[in-house]
């Protein structure tokens, strides 16, 4: 509570700079994770001809990079200011709730054969991504 406040021109751009750095770091680790996901899915067929050891290594690498991405994302969220954190929290809550309900409804449609195709997990991931983007956009607009 006793931190000194500097109002000079070049004062605390460090906060914004720090946020830029954590965002860049998050982008980088997300890209690594996505690449490892592609490697895990396409590597066995197109690169190492279903070699079991290499496939397991790829899966473990993908898992490790995913966990690292989560840790970096937490650091990124902690670096945001309180309003940005609230927008993110709301967006995450909406995404979790809607995805759970819609995901299970979608799964039910598949189970009772009301849709002609399989309810894939990738569909849910895309739905979650779009929901999160929309909720974040609406959240940002509501505070403008």
């Amino acid at each position, binding site marked *: 509570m006793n931190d000194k406040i500097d109002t000079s021109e070049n*004062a605390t751009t460090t906060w914004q700079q720090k946020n830029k750095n954590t965002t860049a770091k998050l982008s980088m680790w997300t890209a690594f994770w996505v690449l490892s996901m592609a490697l895990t899915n396409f590597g066995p067929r197109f690169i190492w001809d279903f070699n079991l050891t290499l496939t397991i290594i790829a899966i473990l690498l993908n898992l490790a990079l995913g966990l690292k991405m989560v840790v970096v994302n937490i650091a990124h969220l902690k670096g945001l200011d*309180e309003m940005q954190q609230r927008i993110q929290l709301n967006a995450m809550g909406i995404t979790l709730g809607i995805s759970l309900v819609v995901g299970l409804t979608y799964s039910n449609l598949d189970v009772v054969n009301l849709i002609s195709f399989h309810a894939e997990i990738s569909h849910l991931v895309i739905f979650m991504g779009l929901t999160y983007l929309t909720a974040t956009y609406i959240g940002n607009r509501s505070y403008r």
Partner: protein
Amino acid sequence: MKNKLKVLRAERDWTQAKLADALEVSRQTINAIEKGKFDPSLPLAFKAARLFKLSIEDIFQDENS
């Protein structure tokens, strides 16, 4: 909650960006506080009070009081 942030900022000829830098928040957050769309936390209100060398009540007022 009402606040005098915009007036205090104007008196000092500060931009929203400069105030945001000083309080270590985004410019959008300063804008939302000034417009009364977002109520700051107590630590942020204290920080603003220290910055303007005023008490919290001099900057923020409860609309119901």
